[in-house]
């Protein structure tokens, strides 16, 4: 349910960039960690709803989920944590430290620059 608030922050960030570029955004890539607890369907739905009648209307979001990572205390290897059986993927040790969770990032925006539609309705 917190996806609505995230959608608002996302809309603000994309709108700001679109104004700078004076171009229409059509796609955006975002990435997030486990703690961000994002449900793709809900975020896309919320974004679609609030982007209506803005330059972001009709945009597609692509969401990449980054796994929680651990660092092995035996062999120092960093690895993605498999929740059902958390262990080092290199040496198999279950003795590891959790690494900080991936933040929620707006990674990339794709703009349509062929025909400027911003404000030309």
């Amino acid at each position, binding site marked *: 349910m917190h996806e609505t608030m*995230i959608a608002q922050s996302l809309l603000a960030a994309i709108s700001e960039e679109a104004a700078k570029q004076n171009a229409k955004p059509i796609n955006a890539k975002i990435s997030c960690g486990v703690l961000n607890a994002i449900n793709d369907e809900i975020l896309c739905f919320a974004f679609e709803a609030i982007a209506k009648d803005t330059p972001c209307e009709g945009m597609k979001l692509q969401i990449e989920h980054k796994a929680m990572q651990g660092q092995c205390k035996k062999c120092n290897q960093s690895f993605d944590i498999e929740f059902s059986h958390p262990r080092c993927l290199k040496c198999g040790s279950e003795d590891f430290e959790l690494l900080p969770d991936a933040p929620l990032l707006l990674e990339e925006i794709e703009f349509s620059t062929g025909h400027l539609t911003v404000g030309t309705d």
Partner: protein
Amino acid sequence: MRTKKSIGKKILSANEEYALKNKQFLAEHKKLCLNMISSPGSGKTTILHRTISDLKDKIRIGVIEGDIQTDLDAEKIRKTGAPAIQINTNGACHLSAAQISTALKQLPLDDLDLIFIENVGNLVCPSAFQLGETGKIVVLSVPEGDDKPIKYPAIFARAKVLLINKIDMLQSGGQSDFDIERAKHDVHKLNKTIEIFPISAKTGDGMIDWYDWLAKSVRSIFS
């Protein structure tokens, strides 16, 4: 024509800025601040009520209560004599760092050692919003079932303490098949440093270990 532009911008940066300010504020004032997260009905308010009453002469506690509606919980806490600030999120499923920043300034901080934040009952969304707390306390109650740590691993992975509440329901006639050892095992696989205290806030069973941990943590803030 289409062009792609790399951005690399944090989305919840406004919340993070407030969280960082809260963290600094709490450090400057030497206050321990614990963010309690659980499903609705796990007994957070009852745990706080009992903890505050039992530790009255040892640790000075204040509470920030988060609920979607009503100030029932803050009222319950105030009956112990402890100060409590109620935040109503009006539908939002989590507290935000800006709300905590305002509430911290409404508490009589000079008279407190420890501030509990009772987050909105929800095992998922609150984990996405750092509040600037010293640590997270997750509460899991016996009727919810011992499979919750593997179903909702993120919050169990990051908490400092797990309180397994309502263990009185495990006693004979309680009809619960909650396996404390299973829950402990599943949590420890992910989180090696978490402290786990099985308690009953109703009967007081097990609370002493939780109180010892609190006393030790409050002391460590001053050292």
